Structure formats: structure tokens, C-alpha cells
């Protein structure tokens, strides 16, 4: 089965009804001496069972912070100041540390950004995977544990010898696949993949992308795929959410985002994707990014928007469903 065929099949199997994750009005601020930076300012979305939700936007738009908030791993001085996160009906932001610890990895795993440094350099691959398993399932019989870890490594296409290796003995792509193997060790319903292919060369990016897809196929896991690799998004994602300056501006099926984006920011973003035949300049150069400590009134994007109207400067556009399954926060398509 080819890569693209597989993506098509995977898309068809998404159940639209069952939301694994519901994020409601999430707010994450970073406290600074000059005021709170509103990295994520009222973001809401759902992730359905078996789907890949792409989360895209420029660097610093808050996509990683939003994902970290879902995991409750926002590092100080960041803190979640509001909103709810329901994972299979359980509100994560209210849980105690102990309750949260039991849910982590079992229900919600992470494929980290920069797998280069995400593995403990002094522990063998097998011990790091075993750590995740035994923390949640208790001490396992040695032979079964080994079988299981070898099986996981095989699932992500790694040779058995990786079992006994240290992270520094692996290439970047292998490390990333070890992280994927670790993420699926407990068969979680949701995995957050934070730019899983950044810092990898294109060939390895493809291998990692295929691995993710295979994992999704086999396990029926939902994935939040964060990243600005639009090619990867096009291949893997079912729906794509576009973030700008801590706000979700558009959320639509992947085809709609790529072929008929509605939000001016998404349009500029998609237009800037270079093709092999043509280099394209980024048109998003007019106007300045506003100060995230002091967002302007009205639409978050109006300072840079080529179509800004009067209403955009005073009223904040709500995220509304403008077409079936197509959410937009913009007055242009009211």
C-alpha cells in the first residue's frame, strides 16, 4: 500500500461523533515582569477518535504551548489561567498531581519535539521504554517485557539490536522512532506529536511520517500533529487547525484548508508554500505582530490583514461553523 493510499484509507475511518479530547476556552499565560504574555488565549477544539488533527501556525503562535497545556506540562513561568481540557470526559486541569500521573502516558502520550535530546543519555532504549510500561502496569516478567519492547520496536520499523543500545548510538530518525515506540507502548487513545519531523532530513521525515501513519492505522489512535511542515500535514492530517497569536483562526478538513482556505492568514500561509517549480515569497510582511502582552481590540489579525474592515478593529470575531465542518473566526465570510 502506498503512502498516499494509506492516508486516504485512514481518513475514511474517522468517527465524527466520538470526541476523545475536548479543549474549551484554554488560556495559557507566561508571566513576565512587563505583564502576562498571552501565548494561548481562548482556544477551543475537539479531537475525534482515530483522527489526526493538524495544529499549524508560525513559530511562537502558541501551538506547542497549547499542546503542552493539554498535557499539563507548561513550564514556568507559563501557567494555565483558564479553560477546561476533557480527555474521555475527565477534566485534566482539575486533577491532582497523583491522579494526573496515573493518566499520563496511559491515556495521553507525547512524541516530543527534538527527539535528539528527548531520551535520557545514560539509559538504554529498553530501560526507557520499560520505565514507561512498569510505572503504569507494575513490575513485569522479564521475558514478556522484552518480547513486548521488541514488538514495539518492530512496529516502528526498528531492528531488534536497538533494544540494547544507548540513545547516542542511534541516528536522529531512529531516536524519533524510539520515541514513537515509547508513545504507543501503553496503547493510549491520544498522542500529541510535537513537530515529530523537525530537525530531520527529508528522507527520514518521510520514514517517520510513514511510521506515524502505520501506528495510527494499526492502533486507531488519535493524534494531534503539531508542526509547520505543511507537506506532512497534507499527508497525515484529517483536519487542520490554524493558530495565530494564541488564537485559533480556522479549523477545517485538510482538503478545504489547502484548496479553499477562508481566513486571510491561512490563505497567506498556504500561498507561501513553495512548490518544486517555483519559489514563493512570504506575503505576510505588512504590519507588525502585535505585543502579545497587550493584544489589540477586535480581531487578533487585523494589524496584518489585507482585508481588515472597521468591524475587525473593534469586535472580536467568534469561531463559527461557516460551512459543515469548517470553522472560521473572520467577518469576511459571515
Amino acid at each position, binding site marked *: 500500500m502506498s503512502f498516499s493510499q494509506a492516508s486516504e484509507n485512514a481518513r475514511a475511518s474517522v468517527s465524527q461523533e466520538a470526541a476523545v479530547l475536548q479543549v474549551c476556552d484554554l488560556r495559557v499565560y507566561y508571566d513576565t515582569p512587563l505583564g502576562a504574555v498571552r501565548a494561548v488565549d481562548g482556544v477551543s477544539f475537539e479531537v475525534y477518535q482515530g483522527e489526526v488533527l493538524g495544529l499549524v501556525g508560525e513559530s511562537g503562535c502558541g501551538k506547542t504551548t497549547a499542546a503542552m497545556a493539554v*498535557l499539563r*506540562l507548561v*513550564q*514556568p513561568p507559563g501557567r494555565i489561567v483558564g479553560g477546561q481540557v476533557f480527555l474521555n470526559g475527565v477534566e485534566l486541569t482539575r486533577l491532582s498531581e497523583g491522579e*494526573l*500521573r*496515573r*493518566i*499520563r*502516558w*496511559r491515556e495521553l*502520550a*507525547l512524541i*516530543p*519535539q*527534538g527527539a*535528539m*535530546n*528527548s*531520551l*535520557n*543519555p*545514560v*539509559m*538504554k532504549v529498553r530501560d526507557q521504554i520499560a*520505565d*514507561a510500561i512498569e*510505572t*503504569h502496569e507494575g513490575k513485569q516478567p522479564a521475558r514478556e517485557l522484552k518480547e513486548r519492547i521488541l514488538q514495539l520496536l518492530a512496529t516502528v520499523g526498528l531492528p531488534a539490536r536497538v533494544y540494547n543500545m*544507548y540513545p*547516542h548510538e542511534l541516528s536522529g530518525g531512529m531516536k524519533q522512532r524510539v*520515541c514513537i515506540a*515509547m508513545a504507543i507502548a501503553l496503547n493510549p487513545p491520544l498522542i500529541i506529536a510535537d513537530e515529530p519531523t523537525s530537525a530531520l532530513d527529508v528522507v527520514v521525515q518521510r520514514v517517520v511520517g510513514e511510521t506515524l501513519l502505520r501506528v495510527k492505522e494499526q492502533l486507531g489512535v488519535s493524534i494531534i500533529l503539531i508542526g509547520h511542515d505543511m507537506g506532512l500535514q497534507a499527508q497525515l492530517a484529517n483536519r487542520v487547525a490554524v493558530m495565530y497569536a494564541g488564537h485559533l483562526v480556522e479549523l477545517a478538513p485538510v482538503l478545504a484548508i489547502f484548496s479553499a482556505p477562508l481566513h486571510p492568514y491561512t490563505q497567506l500561509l498556504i500561498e507561501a508554500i513553495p512548490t518544486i517549480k517555483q519559489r514563493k515569497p512570504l506575503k505576510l510582511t505588512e504590519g507588525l505582530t502585535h505585543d502579545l502582552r497587550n493584544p489589540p481590540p477586535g480581531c487578533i489579525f487585523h494589524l496584518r490583514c489585507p482585508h481588515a474592515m472597521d468591524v475587525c478593529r473593534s469586535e472580536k470575531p467568534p469561531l463559527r461553523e461557516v460551512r459543515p465542518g469548517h470553522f472560521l473566526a473572520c467577518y469576511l465570510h459571515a
Partner: protein
Amino acid sequence: MRGLTLGYLVRRLGMFFLTIWLGATIIFIVPRLAPGDPVAAMVTRLQAQSGYVEGSAEMIEAWRARFGLDGPIYVQYVNYLRSVLTFNLGFSLSSFPSRVEEMIAQALPWTVGLLSVATIISFVIGNAIGALLAWRRTPAALRAILPLSFTFTSIPFFMLAILFIYVFAFGLRWFPPFGAYGRGLVKGFNWPFIKSVVEHGVLPAFSIVVASMGFWGLGMRGMMITTDGEDYMILAQAKGLRPARIFWNYGIRNAVLPQFTALALSLGGIVGGSTLVEYVFAYPGMGYLLYQGIVNNDYTLIQGIVFMLIVTTATAVFIIDLLYPFIDPRISYQKR
């Protein structure tokens, strides 16, 4: 693929002997660069004390022959190397009939006993405090108290030692103020002697620990803060591991690596003794011996102690080189 190879061992051993040879050669050269003649200087000193020494010229000649200073420089050098490599460190100049290696042999056990115990205690406590200070989950109350333990680091060893003697030896009379063991005890493996040695060791060891643990603590705190920001710490948290496991297996296990190198070096250096502490407590160790050598211009004694330092430091480095691949898998025995 990893593992101790013969080639690695040979290279390391070669390095080990090269270091010792270079060190020994420098000790040989440096005093000879200084103007004057140690024997003549000694006779002059005698003359200054007693006004006149009969047959001083013959005396100088005889002593030169006795100390092997009458031959050409390369003969002296070869003789020196031969004797030094057999730990034949010559006669002490200040207490003449005693031999330097005997004096060192008497002082060494005291220093090694005192300083190795003190260094290891200080290493453990200092690193633990440093790691806790950097750890985000450390209770606020503990975090507020811990830095107090480092304030003593800014007080010099010997000031602290004097303070301890005043409070614990003369004031509270808990511990003896000086010496390494009580008078009139039979040296050997018997309870009263051991008890006395421990009692005498507590104050010097305590002052060394208190004064030096800040060094370990501050180093560890810095390393731990760096480690805490690593991606694998965040992933460990995301994995839902218990905080204690993250602290030990992911945090300390990584942060402590550079500390081991420093530990090996300071353990290698302990045969030099802790001169000031040993002096204040009149502890009969290497530091005290070195102090006596310096006050009495006892060159052979000083040379002997410095040579011992070179040998033990080289040994410590050799051992840590062999052990390091076991504590840090990224370092391998393979040639790069």
C-alpha cells in the same frame, strides 16, 4: 563494541607513566635552577648559629657526596629517577637520619583516612543539597533552609576549625582539641584506640565537610538546573514517572557526571593533606608534614610529598579514565 581493550589500557598506562616521569623531572629541575647550593646553604646556616664550623669546606664536600650532588647533572638525574621510581626519596634534611619515605609512610594513613572520609561525606551531602536546591518539587521550607548550609563555605577552613575547637573542644568538651589519637594508647586494632581515632577525627573532618560541601553543592545545583531543562526531563514527566524516579534516574544520574571527575581529582589530591586543618588540629598527617618541611627548608621532604601527589593524582585520573565509560555510556574506550 564497547569494552575495555588492551590498546586502550596500554595507551592509558603510557599516559600514566609519562605524567609521573614529567612530574618527577620537573621536581628535579626546578630546585637546581635556583641559585645557590643547598649543602653550602646549610653549612652557612650552621655557621650562623654557632659562629664557626671547623673544616666547613670538607664538610660540604662530604655532604655533597652523601647526597649524591657531586656527580655531573645527568648522573644525578639517572640516580634520581632510579631512586624515585623505587620510592627511595632520600634523607630528610631537617631531621637527618630519618628517611623521607618513612616520614611519609607514617603521615599518609592519617591523612588518607581523614580526608577520604571527609571528602566523600562532603561530596554526598553537598551534591544532595545542590540537587534539592535545583529541583522544582523540593518543598519551599526545605529550599529556604538549605542555602544556609552553604554560608560556611565562605568562611575559611581554619577559621571554622578554630571556632569548632573553641565551641566543641574547650566549651562543650565533646571532642579532643588536637592530635590524632589519645596518649598512652596501644596503636593497633583495638577498641579504645579506634574510638580515640574517631573522636579525634570528628572535628577536623567536620570542618572540612562544612567548608567544602558548598563547592559540591553549587556545582551540582548548576548542573541540575541545566539538566532540569533538558527535553528528556519533560518527557519523563509526560511518561507519568514517579517524581523520585525522575529525580534520581533522569536528573541526578545525568547531573552528577561532571562531579565525578572533580571527585576523582580531589581524591587524588588528598595525599597533599589539608595543611591548614591539620596544622590547626595538630593532626599528624601529610599537610602537617608539608608544613614542617616548608618551615624547615626541608627540600627533600617537600620534593617527596610533591612526588607522592603527582603519583596519586595520576593514579586517580587513570582510575577515573577506566571507570568513566561505566558511568557515562557516551564515553567509550574506543579511539576516536
